[in-house]
């Protein structure tokens, strides 16, 4: 049996699973809290725990696959190392005119003369002298270089030359635009390579520490990482193209759900503590976002899983707004029941708050220190942290204890952003404890929290909790509908379209006195994974009149998906007609080549590219590689009565699929 270890670092938890690689049967699983400041700690804990049962020895593991949120988090939080972005043939005046400098990620941008046109012909010779000067000047100041050439995806010659130069002069990692994509839009390519370069040192460090952690456990199997499209690559390779690991967590979860549910086409809803991710699979492959993944406000060109993320999860904070309505999320907090199970004094404080009148907005909330204070702190921040040194305190207490108490909430938010403080409050998890559907932690705290909030909206605690749970289901339904529609046609603007709001409300059981009923049916089954799904997804599936599948081991779908992924490498090669009938130009990853006839160029590509791709796949960690070719000829009929066709070009897509190589040598 091939034994695989899957590891997934999610926003809240890090999961580890041991899986029979051939059958995807889960043999053991374990969870640990994700340690954001150093992911390898949580990983180490989860891995140690998964072997806790004792039936499996770490030395028997044949394959390790890791999906990590490191790249996504780092981009969202603006982390990364100093890098230099070398732009060839870009017009700085254009960049300035449209304010594109913001998209360039780094301040250190060098404009070099050179570049090509849309056909791949050189527009200006490359200024190697200036390039050499710029690279040498930064040799000791940056940790990586990013290179992007104007129309570099039509002819990579200049990018390759600069890459060779930078490697020769500095030995630092260099990323090129044409390596990451074949698509147009020079600005977004620049964003993508610059982000990639910034991530390289971070991912390298993570891989090194994870590798050490695995060695310490006695695991000698090769380490693979999950890419944002759900496929696997060797960790050393991922270190060169870390940007391709963004959204690997959601991708792994979608692939994992498919493997556990065994269905064909399906919609996957992955609900965690913080967010709910929605994606769709066709033929077992996740739908990729055609526009390129958006992360942290950046528009990249990475084709990653098309996931719709909603700030709603099992631990989303339930808050009351000014109009006695409650909102759920997007902020995630520690559930009151969980807090109380570790700090019983919380229950007393809640009991006190039930009887004493509390200021709205402060009731039922606590703050606690997350890690030892670090970084610059103001006096009042220091004072706040001192209060929290002994344990969690209620917000009400903190407001009373400080001068200018009304500023306390803002200060706490600032400390939360710096991950020095965590908040605790009423969550859907607490609602489930009150309703008796969940019995993990201290339900007394949940009951008291419910009493406090329910009183403010004039409901009984029971009704309040039922509404909270129903609201979560209802929102999942709405988001699913929204995603299906936006994939198929534009995005509907629910708030602005009164008819859509009216119909959807009727479909979700609202307006029972209306003469018009509405029923929505989702034609594909919904597969739900993630810890809280048992509680909320049945309601959503009922509202959409579709089958719900919650696979066994659903809580660790991401980790299962990590090891279930195949190694998939794709190369897209285009052939374009040369002007005035002078032949055909083949655009290969390493350069352009002209031919007299279309079939000659196709034949050449089919001879040369599969070898390259197979070699690449093996380098990336695949065994038993199979290369397939897809050909699309773009020809259009001419109008005006001419019986003619215009040839625009041919797209050849080479796809190599293989199993990840294991320590055993060959699988099966």
């Amino acid at each position, binding site marked *: 049996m091939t034994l695989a270890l899957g590891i997934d670092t999610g926003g809240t938890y890090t999961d580890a699973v041991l899986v029979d690689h051939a059958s995807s049967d889960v043999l053991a699983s374990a969870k640990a809290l994700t340690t954001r400041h150093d992911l390898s700690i949580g990983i180490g804990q989860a891995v140690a725990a998964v072997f806790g049962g004792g039936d499996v020895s770490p030395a028997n593991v044949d394959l390790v696959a890791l999906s990590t949120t490191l790249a996504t988090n780092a981009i969202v939080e603006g982390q990364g190392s100093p890098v230099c972005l070398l732009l060839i043939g870009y017009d700085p005046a*254009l960049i300035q*005119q*449209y304010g*594109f400098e913001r998209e360039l990620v780094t301040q250190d941008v060098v404009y070099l003369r050179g570049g090509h046109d*849309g*056909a791949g012909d050189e527009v200006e010779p490359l200024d190697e002298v200036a390039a050499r000067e710029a690279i040498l000047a930064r040799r000791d100041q940056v940790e990586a270089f990013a290179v992007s050439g*104007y*129309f570099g995806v039509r002819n990579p010659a200049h990018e390759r030359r600069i890459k060779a130069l930078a490697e020769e002069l500095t030995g630092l990692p260099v990323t090129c635009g044409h390596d990451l994509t074949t698509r*147009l*839009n*020079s*600005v*977004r390519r620049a964003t993508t390579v610059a982000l990639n370069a910034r991530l390289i040192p971070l991912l390298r460090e993570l891989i090194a520490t994870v590798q050490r952690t695995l060695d310490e456990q006695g695991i000698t199997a090769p380490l693979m990482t999950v890419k944002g499209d759900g496929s696997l690559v060797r960790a050393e390779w991922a270190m060169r193209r870390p940007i391709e690991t963004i959204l690997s967590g959601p991708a792994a979860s979608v692939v994992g759900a498919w493997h556990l549910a065994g269905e064909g086409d399906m919609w996957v809803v992955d609900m965690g503590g913080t967010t709910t991710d929605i994606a769709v699979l066709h033929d077992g492959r996740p739908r990729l976002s055609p526009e390129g993944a958006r992360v942290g406000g950046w528009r990249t060109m990475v084709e990653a899983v098309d996931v719709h993320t909603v700030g709603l999860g099992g631990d989303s904070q339930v808050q009351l707004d000014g109009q006695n309505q409650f909102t759920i999320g997007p902020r995630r907090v520690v559930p009151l029941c969980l807090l109380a199970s570790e700090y019983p004094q919380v229950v007393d404080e809640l009991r006190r708050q039930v009887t004493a009148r509390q200021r709205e907005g402060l009731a039922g909330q606590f703050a606690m220190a997350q890690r030892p204070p670090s970084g610059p702190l103001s006096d009042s921040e220091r004072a706040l942290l001192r209060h929290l040194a002994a344990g969690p305190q209620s917000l009400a207490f903190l407001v009373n204890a400080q001068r200018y108490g009304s500023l306390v909430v803002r200060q706490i938010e600032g400390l939360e952003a710096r991950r020095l403080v965590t908040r605790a409050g009423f969550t859907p998890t607490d609602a489930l404890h009150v309703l008796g559907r969940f019995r993990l932690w201290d339900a007394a705290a949940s009951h008291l929290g419910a009493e406090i909030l329910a009183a403010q909206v004039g409901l009984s605690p029971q009704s309040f909790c039922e509404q909270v749970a129903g609201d979560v289901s209802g929102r999942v339904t709405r988001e699913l509908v929204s995603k299906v529609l936006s994939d198929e046609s534009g995005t509907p603007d629910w708030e602005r379209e009164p008819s859509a709001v009216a119909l959807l409300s009727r479909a979700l059981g609202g307006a029972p006195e209306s003469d018009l009923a509405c029923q929505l049916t989702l034609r594909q089954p919904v597969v739900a994974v993630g810890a809280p799904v048992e509680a909320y997804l049945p309601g959503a599936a009922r509202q959409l009149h579709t089958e719900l599948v919650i696979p066994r081991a659903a809580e660790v779908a991401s980790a299962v998906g990590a090891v279930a992924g195949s190694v998939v490498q794709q190369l897209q090669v285009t052939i374009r*007609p040369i002007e*005035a009938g002078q032949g055909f130009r083949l655009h290969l990853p390493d350069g352009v080549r002209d031919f007299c006839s279309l079939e000659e160029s196709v034949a050449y590509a089919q001879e040369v590219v599969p070898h390259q791709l197979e070699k690449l796949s093996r380098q990336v960690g695949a065994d038993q590689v199979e290369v397939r070719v897809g050909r699309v000829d*773009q020809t*259009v*009929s*001419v*109008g*005006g009565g*001419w019986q*003619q066709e*215009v040839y*625009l070009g041919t797209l050849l897509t080479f796809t190599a699929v293989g199993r990840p190589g294991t320590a055993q040598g060959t699988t099966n």
Partner: protein
Amino acid sequence: MADILQEIASKLYDGEDKEVAALVQQALDTGMNPGEVLQGGLIAGMDEVGKDFKAGELYVPEVLVAARAMHAGMDILRPLLTEGDTPTTSKYVIGTVKGDLHDIGKNLVKMMLEGAGFETIDLGTDVLAEDFVAAVREHQPNLVGMSALLTTTMVQMKAAIEALEEAGLRESVKVMIGGAPVTAAFAEEIGADAYAPDAATAVDVARSLASAAA
């Protein structure tokens, strides 16, 4: 008051350029607002021309002559119109693509668009992909229109769209294309936003693209 506007529209339809100019001046002399004269007289007239042209009741020479009458009226109004009078500040860059010298269709579209209140910038014929990009940068239009009449030059529309894409500017404009060999399928294949089979339809398409973007 409304009668004189109807008179202007009617004379415009008939292509009576001198009479249109005289009536426009007369309307202004009675204290009418230039914007009102533009909308109620000139644009109303051109709209009718466009409608009948689409229906096949008017032919190209009659449209050209009506457009000339419109210009006669516009020459008097233009210096008097302020920002607030013009219905939309929609700018339209138009040109015939690289290697193609045909311009009758393009000119017709341009005139119909002006009649509909668009500000047009005509790049002429044999316009390179880079020139379209430069024009977008200089004039910041909402719309770009491309014309081609040869099967050998249609592909240049794709090159121009790709040039806008590479510059990062594709999303800042809506692109529409036309010309005898061009079809809606071709427009979709090359990533254009719209296609129009004739000048009058071009105005409708341009209007809907401009308001969708708003």
